C-alpha cells in the first residue's frame, strides 16, 4: 500500500521580485515499510520535498497524498492534525525541547494524541529501551551527547506509532560511530515495526543503509529507484 504519493508537485519561493523553483514537477510514490533515501546535492529540493510530504508546507501546484488522503490543500490546523499521529519527524539539529527530560520529550507526542497515562508510561519505557537509553530517561538534552539526543528524537518520532517517519539529514551533526549507530537503530526499527522511513541525506555512508534511493537534482527526480545496499 502507498503511504506517500506525490503527483507533479512544484514549490516556488518568492523573495520580493526573485522566484526560486525548489521543486519543478516531482512525482513519486513510497510504499509501506520502505526504507528510502532522498539524495542529491544541496539545493536539489530534498528538504522541500520532505516538508511537503510532512505536511509542514503546501505545494505551489500538484498533489500530495498521505495514506491515500490528499493533504495538499489542508489548512494549518488540519495539517497539524494529519502530522499528529501519522508522521514522525527527525531533524538534523536533534530538536528536542531543551527544558524537558528525555522521557518527557518522548512523551510529548503521546500527550498531544491524548494517550492515557498508563499507555504513555508503557510506550515511553519501551521506546527508551528500543533506542538503548533506559538509564538516561531523566536527563535533559544538554546532559546528553549528540548521538543520545538523536536517539531520543528517533524514539519521539516513533512514539505515536506513525505510518511514516521523515528524517532530514539525521546524521549530519554526528561523528561516524554515532551516525552509524543512529542508522542501525533506524534500520532495526524499520524491520521490527514496519514503519516507513524516508530520509534526506548526501552522506554516502548513510545512503548505503537505504533499500531504495531517490535522487533529486535541481528540483527534479533524476533517479526514482536507485538501490542502496
Amino acid at each position, binding site marked *: 500500500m502507498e503511504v506517500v504519493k506525490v503527483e507533479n508537485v512544484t514549490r516556488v519561493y518568492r523573495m520580493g521580485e526573485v522566484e526560486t523553483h525548489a521543486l519543478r514537477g516531482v512525482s513519486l510514490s513510497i510504499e509501506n515499510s520502505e526504507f528510502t533515501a532522498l539524495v542529491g546535492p544541496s539545493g536539489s529540493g530534498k528538504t522541500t520535498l520532505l516538508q511537503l510530504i510532512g505536511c*509542514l508546507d503546501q505545494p505551489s501546484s500538484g498533489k500530495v497524498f498521505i495514506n491515500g488522503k490528499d493533504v495538499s490543500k489542508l489548512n494549518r490546523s488540519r495539517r497539524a492534525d494529519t502530522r499528529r499521529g501519522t508522521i514522525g519527524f527527525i531533524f538534523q539539529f536533534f530538536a528536542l525541547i531543551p527544558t524537558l527530560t528525555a522521557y*518527557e520529550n518522548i512523551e*510529548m507526542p503521546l*500527550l*498531544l494524541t491524548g494517550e492515557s497515562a498508563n499507555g504513555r508510561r508503557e510506550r515511553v519505557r519501551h521506546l527508551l529501551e528500543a533506542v538503548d537509553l533506559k538509564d538516561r530517561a531523566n536527563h535533559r538534552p544538554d546532559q546528553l551527547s549528540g548521538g543520545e539526543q538523536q536517539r531520543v528524537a528517533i524514539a519521539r518520532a516513533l512514539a505515536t506509532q506513525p505510518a511514516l517517519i521523515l528524517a532530514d539529514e539525521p546524521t549530519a551533526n554526528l561523528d561516524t560511530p554515532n551516525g552509524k549507530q543512529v542508522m542501525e537503530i533506524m534500520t532495526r526499527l524499520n524491520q521490527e515495526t514496519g514503519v516507513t522511513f524516508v530520509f534526506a541525506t548526501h552522506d554516502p555512508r548513510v545512503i548505503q543503509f537505504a533499500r531504495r534511493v531517490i535522487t533529486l537534482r535541481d528540483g527534479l527526480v533524476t533517479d526514482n529507484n536507485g538501490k542502496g545496499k
Partner: protein
Amino acid sequence: MKQILKIAFRDLGRNRRRSFFSALALAMGLALLLLVAAFFNGEMNSAMDATILLQSGHLQVRMASYEESKTSLKWENLIADPEQLAAQIESLDPVKTASPRLFASGIVAVRDESAGVRIYGIDPSSEANDPYRIGLLEGEFLTPDDREGVLIGQPLAEKMSLGVGDSISLSVNTSSGDVDEQVFTIRGIYSTQTYGFDSVTIFLPLAKAQAITQAERHASTIFILLNDKADTETVAAAMQGADFAVLTWPKMNEMIMQVEEMANSYIFILYLIVLGITATVIINTLIMSVFERTREIGVLSALGMKGRQIMSMFLIQSSLLAVGGVIMGLIFGLLLVTYFSKNGFYIGNMGMTGLLIGNTIYTELTLRDAISLTVLSFIVTLLAGLYPAVLASRMEPVRALRDGK
C-alpha cells in the same frame, strides 16, 4: 495541558534572571499603585476628618437666611440665645457635643504688616473646641470671660513674628456694617497641623466676639459633633425647623467630594501610565522568549501541536509571570503602605483654600482598592501576553524550523 504548563514554567526557569526582573517590574508597578491609592485615600480621609473636626462638624444649625459667603452679622441672620439651643441639641442621644460659634472677618495689623483673618468666636469650655485646645503650642487657652485675649495659629505667628504676650491690633466688621478696632493680647499659639486652617483662623471667646461685632447674644451657627457620623441624616431629620437650616457634613464639604472625584480621574490616568510601562516590559520579555524559541515552536508544531496550544503555552507563561509579580507586588506594596500608615508622609503646607489637608499624610488602603488594583495588574499582564502568544501561534512550522537557532 500539564505538559504545556511544564514547558512554560521551565522556560521561565531557563531565563531566571530575565523572568525575575519582568515579574519585578510588575511588582514595582503594583506596589506603586497600592501606595498611590493608599496615599490618596489617606489624604482625602484626613482632609475630610480635619474639615469635620475643625470647620464643619457633622452638622450645623444656622438661620435659614444666613449666607456663609457673606459672613453676615445682621441679627436677623443669626441665631438668638444660641446657648439655649445648643443645650437642647446636646441633650439628644446621638449628639456628642453642640456649641455656638460666631464667625466674623477681620484684619490683624502689627507694625507695618497686616493680614486678613477669619475670626471664630468660640465657647472655650466646650468639648467641641478640644482640637484647638489640644493643638496649643505655647501659652494658655482662652477662658470664657477673657476680654482681651486671642489665640492665633502658628503660621500666622511666624509670618508676623508674633509670640505669646505680644499685642495685635484687630479690626472687625460689625453688625451695623462699621468696622471696630481694638488691641488684643496673644494668649496662645496653636497648630492643628493643617496649614490652610491655621494660617487664617484666630479665636476669641464667644462673649468678646459678640461684644466687638455688636452681635449681642447671637451666634452664626451651632456646631455639632455626633458620636457616630452614620447618624448624621437621622439627627438632621429630627432637628428640622421652619427658621433654621440644618446642614450635614457631606453637604457642607461638597468641594472635598468634588476634589476627590476629580483627583480620582487623574489617578486613574496615572494607573494606566504605570501599568502601560509594566505591560511594555512584559511584552518585551515574552517577545524575546518567542524569538529565542522559534525552532522549539517549529518542532512542537511539527509534532502536531496546534496554534492555539502554542498560544496557550505563552499565555500560561505570562500568567505565571503575572502571579509571581502580583504576589511580590502585594508584599512590597503592603509593606510600604504599612510603613507610611504608621510613620506618615510629610508633605508640608499643601492646604488649598477650603480644603484642609494635614501636614502629614497617613496612608490608608481600602480592601476595595487592594483587590481592584491587583486584579487590574493581573489582567493587564495577561493582555500584554496576548500579542507575543499570537505571534508564536502564527509562526509557520517550516519557517520556524529553518530560521530558528
